[in-house]
C-alpha cells in the first residue's frame, strides 16, 4: 500500500515542479493534470485498503477526474482567448499586470 502512496507522492511533486518551471500555459495545465492524477491514486488506494465502506474514495476519485477534465476545457478557452489577443500562450507574455 505504501508503494501506491509513494508513487502518488512522486507524481504530485513532478506536477508541482512542472507548474513552477513551465512557462507555457498548456504545459502548466498538463502539470496540473499530473497533480490531480496523483490525487485519484491516493483516493483509490485508501478506498481499497482502509475504508470499511469502500466507496467514498472511489466516488471522490470519479469526481476529481470529472472536475479535472472540465478544468482543462475551461482553461483552454481562456488560453485561446489570450492567444488571440497576444499571439502566444506563454504566461511570460501575460505581463500587463504585475505578475
Amino acid at each position, binding site marked *: 500500500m505504501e508503494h501506491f502512496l509513494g508513487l502518488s507522492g*512522486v507524481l504530485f511533486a*513532478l506536477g508541482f515542479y512542472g507548474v513552477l518551471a513551465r512557462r507555457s500555459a498548456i504545459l502548466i495545465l498538463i502539470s496540473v493534470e*499530473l497533480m490531480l492524477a496523483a490525487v485519484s491514486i491516493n483516493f483509490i488506494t485508501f478506498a481499497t485498503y482502509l475504508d470499511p465502506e469502500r466507496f467514498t474514495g472511489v466516488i471522490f476519485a470519479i469526481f476529481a*477526474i470529472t472536475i479535472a477534465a472540465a478544468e482543462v476545457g475551461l482553461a483552454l478557452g481562456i488560453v485561446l482567448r489570450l492567444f488571440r489577443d497576444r499571439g502566444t500562450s506563454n504566461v511570460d507574455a501575460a505581463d500587463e499586470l504585475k505578475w
Partner: protein
Amino acid sequence: MLSRLPLPPQLDRTITLGAVLAVGVALPYVGVVLVLAAMGTLSVAAVVFWMLAAIIVAGACGAVFSNHVVHAALSLVIAAMGIAGIFLLLASEFLALVQVLVYGGGVTILLLFGLMLTNATEDPLVTDGTQKPFAFGVGLAMGAVIVAAMVGSTWRAGEPMVVPFAELGVRLYRDFGLPFEIASLVLIVALVGAIAIGRRDQDGDVS
C-alpha cells in the same frame, strides 16, 4: 529503406534519445525487477506494480521535462494509461475505464486541439523559465516530504477489498446524489464559460 524517408532531423534526435533511454534505463530496470521476481522476492502483483510505476514516472517526466509541447501532451497520455493500470491493480475496473476514456480520449484531444489552435508548437517561447533550478529544488523537497510522510505513517490498512460495480452505482447516484447534481452545475459553468470566453465575437470587438 528507412534512410530514404524524409524524416525531419529532430525526429532523428528523438529516436536516438529514445533508444539511449531504453537501453540505458529501461532494460536494466526491467532486468532487475524480473531477476528479483525470479528470486521470489517480488510477487507477481509487485512486478506489475513496478513496471507500471516505471511507465507512469517515465510518462510524467516526459510531460514535465520535454521541451516539445506535443511530446509533453502524449507523455501525459502514457502516464494516464499507466495510472489506469494501477487502478486495475487496485481492483477498481470502473475507475480504470473512466481514466482511459477521460484522459486518453477527452483530455488529450482537448489539449491537442488547444495546441493546434494556439500554434503552440511554433511558439519559440515554449522553453522553460529561469526559475528552473529553484523549481527543481522545491519539487524535490516536496516529493521527499510527501513520500516520507506516506511511507513513514502506519496506516490502519485492512485487506484490500474489491469494489463491487453495482453497489458503486447505487452509492454514487443515491447517497452522493447531491454532489453529483452540483458537479453537473460545475460542468455547465465550464461549458458555458469556455464558449462565452473562447467565442470570436462578430462585431469589431477586441477579441
